[in-house]
């Protein structure tokens, strides 16, 4: 890795996490530490939030060095990535210096957000050009899915393919091979979108808050919307990308002009988050604790406390749930002089036309552009998908009536008699203007959407993935688990459709599962339906037990959040294939409860399994104490690798880097297990650690409370947890059946349900999404 700036160091961290030995080089410095620059850059990457590394220990795979002193690193490397400043001359000078030292087989790449790769490498000898290409990682590279690959005209196809495969399988990226056009695809479209929104806001006299309200979750775009995103990216970076487009897209230079107020902000050094202020600024609240966010007034360049947007059309649209319906309400149903309506036509409408217009130049289909924006900017729907959702024909009608000339691609679509960019039936296809017709989609898309539905209810479905593998798919809000899910999963395990040989528990929603449905629980608590709660808990326990001991292989495929009941389900599954970005934990104490879906039981069993090789009692107690502390603190893993360190994933669990491949890998695993001949897991017993360990755990929390770190109810909850994990009042060393531990869990859970503090905690979590410390 040449260059230890934010991108270089964080890509190095990603590669190290994937198992590569990385040399991170930067300019040499005078003085005792020649690698001071690389060291400083690496230190910043290690401090990055969210973390750049999966595990702190991965840092061992990174060796620091400098461009002058570490030529042997260049000679040894298989892949040399240049990621220095976005200046053609700087990149070229460094590459010219390093290229002669590379091994013949080495692949050389330049990482850029949109400089011309051909120019960066123009001087390279032809045989080296075969093994050179451009990459564009998005920031932060661990978390943003997109990687644009821009091969040179003479890059060997095997070279691009090798990097693509490595990036997809090992780094988990969604790779798009793009043409070497200015700013490639995602930044080209994203920058245009930003400029249009900024200009429309100024023209219509909308505040930044208004513009962000119209370009955020309303459209399925991130909460940071337009201006907060720009603050995060940095206005200087943004200005460079705009300048690059202005200089290199001669016909479009009029489109790539920064509004005057942004030019002034740049002059003042208001670059966003990195300089402490940009379109927004955070400052201590005038009174008391916390901080408040100020927003910039583009006219006066003064900051004022951020206001909620009060555009009338916005409130109406927000009442609708589906993005398409919201868009239609704003674009067509709002009065013609409504400013929100005009804003969207001038920003999103222009974005659609622009995207259609540049398709030929990008040599891309709408599918590629949509993927670029979904993967690189976290949009739920790309521009063409949004366009279809808003109603393509109606928008065309609108422009035609205004006398607007439509792009060639749109004319071709109409000429072909098509009315949408995508069609689902008879096959999943996308309109390709270059071919004047639809063609099969090529990029990964939700598999489950295509799978045959076998059974379903409102929260959960059983689908046929093919090859005799069924998938239990959750699709409730945040994939929480309620009675419907429990019922369907239980039935599927008890009586699987005959064609199924194995099951996968997985979905392609935003999170694997946020746990039990707390709203239902709160209603039952308020109605004091203790028996019903007890029964529901028991059914969930029995479901997890059935999952664990199933007669056919069951593979859980968790990703993202797998917390509370979602984590217990994962712990119960006989086999797990997890996405590397797995944030799992037993966080029940945060809502005044303890794990009661087998979470305590599995924690004991795993501690016992970890302890087996050592001196039994001590090792078991230590493992159990470590697990107790994780649960009592409500800790959530930062990655699947950390979950494995904690024992939340066992030795048989597989970790998959690419989320788009997760279900497929889980399916392959299920198939392998079924093919090999499945032996159902036997009933187990968990050792009771006994009263002394329980007292040790309780003393720890008691002292935390005495020291003012936790409250009285936190202590009560942790002591309740300690009691269950120690095996209740059973003598130390006694072996408890799984059912006996489940009963302890249930009793403790029910006793807590009756406490007002627990009720308040649940209500607070439902209202704010944050735990209450009462």
């Amino acid at each position, binding site marked *: 890795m040449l260059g230890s700036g934010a991108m270089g160091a964080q890509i190095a961290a990603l590669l190290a996490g994937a198992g590569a030995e990385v040399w991170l080089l930067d300019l040499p410095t005078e003085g005792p530490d020649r690698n001071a620059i690389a060291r400083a850059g690496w230190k910043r990457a290690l401090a990055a939030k969210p973390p750049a590394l999966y595990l702190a220990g991965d840092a*061992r795979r990174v060796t620091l060095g400098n461009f002058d002193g570490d030529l042997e690193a260049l000679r040894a490397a298989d892949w040399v990535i240049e990621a220095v400043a976005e200046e053609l001359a700087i990149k070229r000078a460094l590459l010219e210096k390093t290229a002669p030292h590379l091994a013949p087989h080495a692949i050389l790449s330049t990482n850029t957000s949109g400089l011309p790769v051909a120019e960066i490498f123009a001087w390279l000898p032809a045989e080296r050009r075969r093994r050179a290409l451009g990459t564009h990682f998005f920031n932060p590279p661990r978390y943003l899915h997109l990687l644009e690959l821009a091969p040179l005209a003479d890059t060997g196809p095997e070279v691009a393919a090798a990097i693509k495969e490595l990036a997809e399988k090992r780094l988990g990226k969604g790779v798009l091979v793009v043409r070497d056009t200015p700013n490639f695809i995602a930044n080209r479209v994203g920058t245009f979108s930003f400029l249009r929104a900024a200009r429309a806001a100024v023209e219509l006299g909308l505040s930044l808050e208004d513009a962000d309200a119209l370009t955020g979750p309303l459209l399925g775009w991130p909460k940071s919307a337009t201006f907060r995103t720009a603050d995060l990216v940095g206005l200087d970076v943004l200005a460079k990308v705009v300048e690059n487009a202005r200089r290199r897209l001669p016909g479009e230079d009029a489109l790539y002009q920064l509004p005057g107020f942004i030019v002034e902000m740049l002059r003042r050094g208001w670059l966003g988050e990195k300089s402490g202020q940009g379109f927004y600024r955070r400052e201590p609240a005038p009174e008391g604790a916390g901080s408040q966010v100020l927003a910039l007034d583009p006219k006066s360049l003064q900051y004022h406390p951020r206001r909620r947007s009060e555009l009338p059309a916005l409130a109406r649209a927000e009442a609708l749930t589906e993005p398409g319906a919201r868009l239609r309400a704003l674009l067509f149903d709002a009065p013609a002089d409504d400013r929100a309506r005009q804003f969207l036509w001038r920003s999103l409408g222009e974005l659609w036309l622009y995207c259609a217009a540049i398709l030929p130049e990008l040599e891309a289909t709408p599918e590629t552009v949509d993927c670029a924006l979904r993967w690189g900017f976290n949009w739920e729907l790309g521009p063409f998908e949004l366009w279809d959702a808003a109603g393509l024909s109606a928008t065309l009608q609108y422009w035609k009536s205004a006398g607007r000339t439509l792009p060639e691609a749109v004319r071709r679509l109409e000429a072909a008699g098509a009315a949408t960019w995508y069609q689902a039936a008879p096959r999943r296809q996308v309109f390709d203007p270059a071919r004047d017709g639809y063609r099969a989609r090529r990029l990964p898309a939700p598999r489950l959407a295509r799978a045959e539905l076998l059974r379903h209810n409102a929260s959960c479905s059983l689908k046929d993935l093919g090859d005799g593998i069924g998938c239990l798919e959750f699709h409730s809000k945040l994939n929480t688990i309620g009675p419907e899910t429990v019922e369907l999963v239980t039935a599927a395990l008890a009586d699987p459709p005959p064609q199924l040989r194995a099951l996968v528990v997985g979905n392609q929603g935003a999170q694997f599962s946020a746990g039990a449905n707390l709203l239902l629980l709160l209603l039952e608590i308020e109605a004091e339906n203790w028996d019903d709660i007890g029964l529901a808990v028991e059914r969930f326990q029995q479901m997890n037990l059935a999952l664990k001991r199933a007669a056919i292989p069951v593979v859980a495929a968790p990703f993202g959040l797998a917390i509370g009941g979602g984590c217990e389900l994962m712990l119960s599954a006989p086999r797990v294939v997890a996405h590397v970005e797995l944030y799992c934990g037993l966080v029940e104490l945060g809502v005044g409860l303890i794990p009661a879906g087998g979470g305590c039981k599995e924690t004991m069993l795993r501690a016992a399994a970890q302890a087996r090789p050592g001196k039994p009692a*001590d090792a078991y*107690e230590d493992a159990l104490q470590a697990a107790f502390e994780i649960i009592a603190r409500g800790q959530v893993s930062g990655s699947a690798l950390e979950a494995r360190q904690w024992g939340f994933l066992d030795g048989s669990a597989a970790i998959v880097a690419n989320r788009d491949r997760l279900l497929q890998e889980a399916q392959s695993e299920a198939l392998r297990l079924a093919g090999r001949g499945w032996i159902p897991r036997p009933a187990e017993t968990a050792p009771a650690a006994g*009263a*002394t360990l*329980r*007292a*040790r755990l*309780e*003393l720890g929390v*008691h*002292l935390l409370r*005495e*020291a*003012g*770190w936790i409250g009285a109810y936190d202590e009560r909850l942790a002591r309740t947890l300690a009691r269950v994990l120690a095996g209740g009042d059973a003598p130390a060393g006694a072996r408890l059946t799984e059912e006996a531990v489940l009963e302890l869990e249930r009793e403790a859970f029910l006793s807590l349900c009756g406490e007002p503090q627990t009720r308040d905690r649940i209500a607070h979590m439902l209202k704010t999404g944050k735990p209450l410390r009462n």
Partner: protein
Amino acid sequence: MNAAYIIAAARTPVGRAGRGTLRATRPDELAALVLAAALERSGIPPEEARRGLEDVILGCAMPEAEQGLNVARLAALRAGLPVEAAAMTVNRFCASGLEALALADARVRAGAALAIGGGVESMSRVPMGGHRPSPNPWLLEHYPDAYLSMGLTAERLAEETGIGREAADAYALESHRRALAALAAERFREETVAVETRLPAQPADEPLAHPAAGWRAARLEHDECPRAGTTAEALAALPPAFHARGKVTAGNASQMSDGAAALLLASEPLLRRHQLHPLGRLCAYAVAGIEPGRMGLGPVAAISRALERAGRRLQEMDLIELNEAFAVQAIAVIAQAGLDPARVNVNGGAVALGHPLGCTGARLAISMLYELRRRRARYGLVTMCVGGGMGAAGILENLQI
């Protein structure tokens, strides 16, 4: 009753636990070193030691693991002491070393010719509370203060007495100033014995390529806890170490440490036979109990008992070694026992010099004897608070006046 005389003493420099020079050294090795040194310094011939040395008594506050079993016996064997000398380990937490001295004194007065009292603790090797705390469930439920952590008892004391963060930090700064001055003047040189030991060659989280390259030689010659750069600003910037909103910090609490100390006591006939000039003698020793949550005030009652037993008045005590478990605790004891701050911890206390729990009582007695001799002063009071709610106090007389 016969008389007992302290004829020789030796202690290791106090090492900083966790990161210090003694962090990889077994506590039984430290104890063996001071046992052998005390015997050697006494000038008693080996055959006399074989005949006369009856007991080796060491205090240890967490007597388990590397300082477990009967660490006094193991250290005596490791030091090559005659097998005829018996050994025992005693535990009165922070007073263990003084307790061992009192027991050795009693042994000689009851007729033994020679006995050793001392103490040892490696807080690097055995954490405070031990590796596997196993509290009594009934006590935890009904009397949890029995297990209250020491830092929290200090916070309670701060609350009870109104002693503030500034006073505690100022006290800590003065303790450092005195300790650094004592070290600069080499005032501890005579009593200490350097430790030749070894340390891991690299941090534990760096993988080791060759097991043989895992060690490097190390030597500790001086107490290493006092921090030369300590300033009022630095102390004020430290976060609370125990209570979330507390006044006790790592800077105004005693430092966790490693060390060992031993004193050799002899009977009057033996003294005469070898024409020895004793360092001093223990005039009186007393202990007292108090509520566990107020353990820091334990010395107040113990001091008056010890004075009464020795038939002395507080004013007669030329020097006072008050173990600084916590600065707030030391300030409270000074105020409540009416001690003269100018005579208390003239060479700094545990806040600066460290507090190797089981060793401390013996360490303070040794430092007291050497300082009394240097000043040609006669009486010294050694006192400390004890976890679980106790205090201990001993009165020493300098016989080299």
